[in-house]
């Protein structure tokens, strides 16, 4: 057991008080004074159309309107991994709800009213509303006729004259031989539709261009520095550079990937440049939140697996066709990440994976907690369940036999690292009492079933994604840490405080971790990919070590104590050999120590830390995906569920669900458990009832919480048992690796497999609603 003082302890959140008192300010809570302007956008009513004419006259004439802006003023594209998205639609609109123009007015009601007065003449085109149609369309009316000219990262492979924005191939071993060696070859198809993030805070942005040329954006964002970079890039033709673009990000009311990168914020940035001197606010409504940010992409998976009679998997062939929507500047990397890892946490010698990013005329797909893994795990884990059944093998045993171990080759060729997958499987199996018979419900219309699933996920990020931290002491030995990760609920601020606390011997309550302002806080790539605890945690640890070294240097030099004897505890310098020695930080932390001659040494202690993984590479052979090391590490785990189904109504209740995750080292076990409880419910909702409905013209029919149901307090499982496994991550802070997204990944196959166990019915498309279950039973 470790003897850490603050690490591994369930410290109370450093932001807890701000949140339960309402002191925490979100973007829309900030005060901008009576000068504030409000913007509203003009939205496309069509999924695909050519813009023929825009008439803004009536809107401009409405009293209270300050400005009407169209795509003419901002003919710029932007994007994270591919520059395919527009600030305002230019010649074409590509999904229902896309912004075509905007109105700035003195009050929100006038802005909305004027937006309705903007007249846009469209020529409708045939919208491509599913992957099949989109793959057929190779003519001029494909979604992006200019695709060939778009900038994109080197690891994307768009296909000329098609709707394929990226084609990720993985080829390993010999698939033909693998199937030849197999005793059983099993094929099937699975469908996962789109989903919405549903953070409870809507997107919000306020922009202001000062008369001195500095553009500031206040945004509800997971990605302040990336936003600054994308704003500066997109607005460069107007003379903006990073120096005069600033992003300030207060508390964020939930992200789940939906507030990563840049979506509506760029509209606020552009609009602000048209009204110098005045702040302009753009708030997304709940409806817009659903259809004009990102959605989780839908996927159609075809899976073919070869196995031997003893359960050894010889081969996997998998095609993932992604409905990526109208713009894929972020979503194409979801497709990429899934392609690299679609073996799941299994040892499979022969692999062929095609992960294909297809443009459609539905809202832009993008990052959503799980980043493609929830999507392919549904099919894969359903499939493995059926294979175990056909082999007459216990499904947990089947999984355990094939589970990936340290040293096994990953699909892209690099070796797997040490991990606690087997321990996770065994502990979950025991906790759910897998080998004991299920309870038989007293009500004969009800029946119980159990499901099992493994899961894994690696952070998907550019190989040089980095984190930095500044750390400064104050006179009272309190600390401010400046970082640019975002507190989106996961407890990031608290964990960063715990890391610095451990190194410096200052309790977390004395540490403030400051939310980003890109002009004050140092660089961070983004708060995504479950990488922030690991990456920014390393940066904070290094900043704290830098500060500690300065303290130790000072004591060694001035007090002539051997540095190896010095340690820091409770805001004091202590000595291992002189137990009575205790020097309060307050004695020197700002003003230094005085020498006998009256001169001073030391001075304010300020630390800096940086972390960039230097061992990754996204460069690989495009035809096989071999040769690179695109992923820094995988977080793995196992999960099991017991459900009770009412045969008459199809309704599922959940007596128990168990999830074990190897997070390396739980820096704050309570926060880890919080991720498990929250993520699991979010995952269960995607499989049980969340359901996006589009009409045949591509319009989302249920963009609100009345019609798109997310869980309430009445929808919780009776019991969620979190299990923490800790096989340390060598390069993680105190051995930690990320675990935030993972907790929702196994939920869908858990339900599908438990349903099969209970009723022998295999549902291969999500969601598995009560209605669908009853329909299956009737058939």
């Amino acid at each position, binding site marked *: 057991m470790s003897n850490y003082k603050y690490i591994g302890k369930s410290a109370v959140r450093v932001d807890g008080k701000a949140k339960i008192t309402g002191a925490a300010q979100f973007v829309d809570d900030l005060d901008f004074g009576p000068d504030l302007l409000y913007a509203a956008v003009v939205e496309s009513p069509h999924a695909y159309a050519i813009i023929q004419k825009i008439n803004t006259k009536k809107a401009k004439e409405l009293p209270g309107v300050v400005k009407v802006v169209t795509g003419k003023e901002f003919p710029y594209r932007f994007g994270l991994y591919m520059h395919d998205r527009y600030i305002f639609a230019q010649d074409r609109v590509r999904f229902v709800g896309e912004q075509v123009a905007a109105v700035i007015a003195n009050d929100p009601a006038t802005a909305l009213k004027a937006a309705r007065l903007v007249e846009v003449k469209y020529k409708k085109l045939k919208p491509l509303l599913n992957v099949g149609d989109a793959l057929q369309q190779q003519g001029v009316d494909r979604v992006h006729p200019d695709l060939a000219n778009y900038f994109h990262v080197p690891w994307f492979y768009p296909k000329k004259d098609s709707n394929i924005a990226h084609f990720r191939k993985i080829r390993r071993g010999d698939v033909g031989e693998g199937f030849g060696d197999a005793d059983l070859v099993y094929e099937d198809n699975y469908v996962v539709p789109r989903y919405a993030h549903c953070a409870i805070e809507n997107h919000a942005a306020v922009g202001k261009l000062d008369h001195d040329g500095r553009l500031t954006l206040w945004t509800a964002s997971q990605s302040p520095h990336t936003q600054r970079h994308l704003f500066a890039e997109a607005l460069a033709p107007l003379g903006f550079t990073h120096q005069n673009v600033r992003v300030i990000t207060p508390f964020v009311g939930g992200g789940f990937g939906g507030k990563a990168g840049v979506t509506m914020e760029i509209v606020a940035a552009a609009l602000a440049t048209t009204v110098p001197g005045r702040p302009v606010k753009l708030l997304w409504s709940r409806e817009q939140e659903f259809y004009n940010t990102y959605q989780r992409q839908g996927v159609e998976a075809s899976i073919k697996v070869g196995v031997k009679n003893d359960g050894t998997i010889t081969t996997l062939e998998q095609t993932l066709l992604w409905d990526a929507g109208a713009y894929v500047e972020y979503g194409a990397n979801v497709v990429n990440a899934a392609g690299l890892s679609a073996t799941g946490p299994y040892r499979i010698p022969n692999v062929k994976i095609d992960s294909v990013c297809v443009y459609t005329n539905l809202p832009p797909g993008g990052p959503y907690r799980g980043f493609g893994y929830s999507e392919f795990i549904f099919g894969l884990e359903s499939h493995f369940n059926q294979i175990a059944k056909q082999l007459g093998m216990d499904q947990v045993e089947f999984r355990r036999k094939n589970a990936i171990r340290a040293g096994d080759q990953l699909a892209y060729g690099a070796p797997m690292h040490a991990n606690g997958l087997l321990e996770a499987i065994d502990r979950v199996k025991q906790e759910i009492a897998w080998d004991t018979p299920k309870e038989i419900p007293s009500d004969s219309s009800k029946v119980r079933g159990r499901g099992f699933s493994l899961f894994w996920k690696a952070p998907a990020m550019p190989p040089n994604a980095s984190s930095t931290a500044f750390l400064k002491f104050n006179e009272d030995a309190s600390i401010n840490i400046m970082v640019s990760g975002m507190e989106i609920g996961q*407890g990031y601020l608290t964990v960063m405080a715990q890391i610095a606390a451990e190194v410096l011997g200052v309790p977390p309550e004395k540490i403030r971790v400051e939310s980003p302002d890109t002009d004050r806080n140092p660089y961070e790539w983004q708060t995504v990919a479950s990488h922030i605890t690991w990456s920014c945690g390393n940066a904070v640890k290094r900043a704290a070590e830098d500060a500690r070294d300065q303290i130790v240097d000072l004591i060694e030099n001035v007090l002539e104590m051997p540095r190896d004897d010095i340690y820091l505890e409770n805001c004091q310098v202590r000595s291992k050999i002189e137990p009575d020695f205790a020097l309060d930080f307050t004695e020197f932390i700002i003003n230094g120590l005085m020498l006998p001659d009256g001169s001073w040494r030391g001075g304010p202690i300020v630390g800096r830390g940086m972390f960039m993984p230097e061992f990754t590479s996204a460069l690989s052979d495009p035809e096989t995906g071999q040769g690179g090391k695109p992923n820094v590490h995988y977080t793995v785990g196992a999960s099991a569920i017991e459900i009770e189904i009412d045969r008459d109504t199809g309704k599922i209740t959940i007596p128990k669900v168990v999830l074990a995750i190897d997070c390396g080292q739980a820096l704050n076990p309570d926060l880890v458990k919080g991720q498990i409880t929250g993520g699991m419910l979010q995952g269960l909702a995607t499989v049980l009832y969340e359901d996006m409905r589009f009409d045949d013209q591509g319009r989302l029919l249920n963009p609100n919480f009345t019609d798109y149901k997310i869980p309430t307090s009445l929808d919780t499982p009776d019991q969620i048992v979190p299990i923490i496994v800790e096989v340390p991550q060598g390069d993680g802070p105190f051995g930690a690796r990320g675990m935030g997204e993972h907790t929702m990944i196994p939920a869908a196959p858990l339900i599908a497999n438990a349903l099969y166990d209970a009723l022998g019915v295999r549902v291969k498309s999500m969601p598995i609603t009560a209605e669908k279950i009853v329909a299956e039973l009737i058939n």
Partner: protein
Amino acid sequence: MKVSFTLNSETRWLECQPNQTLLHALREQLGVKSPKCGCERGDCGTCTILLDGKSIKSCLVLACEVEGCEITTLEGLMQSGLTPLQKAFLDQNAFQCGFCAPGMVIAATELLEHNSSPNRGEIEEALAGNLCRCTGYAPIIDAVLDLVDNGGK
């Protein structure tokens, strides 16, 4: 039109448009920012406040309807520091992003005022109008239960 009412024990008045919601009036005109706007149609509960002691969604009430009423927001609950309920939420890390917290605290406060020892089912029922996307509700419900088990201290 002019309306006057009691807000967090103080008499206040405001000039409002007939179609203005109470949520909007509180946030924009009176600067009371704890009620949040998550949907503006009664679905999410982030705008929950107490109106004459009953929890309501302030996005569904017009400002002009509250003449003479007593309104309490989260700010008004803390007149002598954190309430025991808030302390329980704090100690148990009950919230994550915290956007739902003000509404949730109000809803739970109302529950405890009417029922000092609710069971799990009653708590789930009372909070069912307040959406939380982060926590899975369990830590919120557990914090209320713990408070109840400790005799409300």
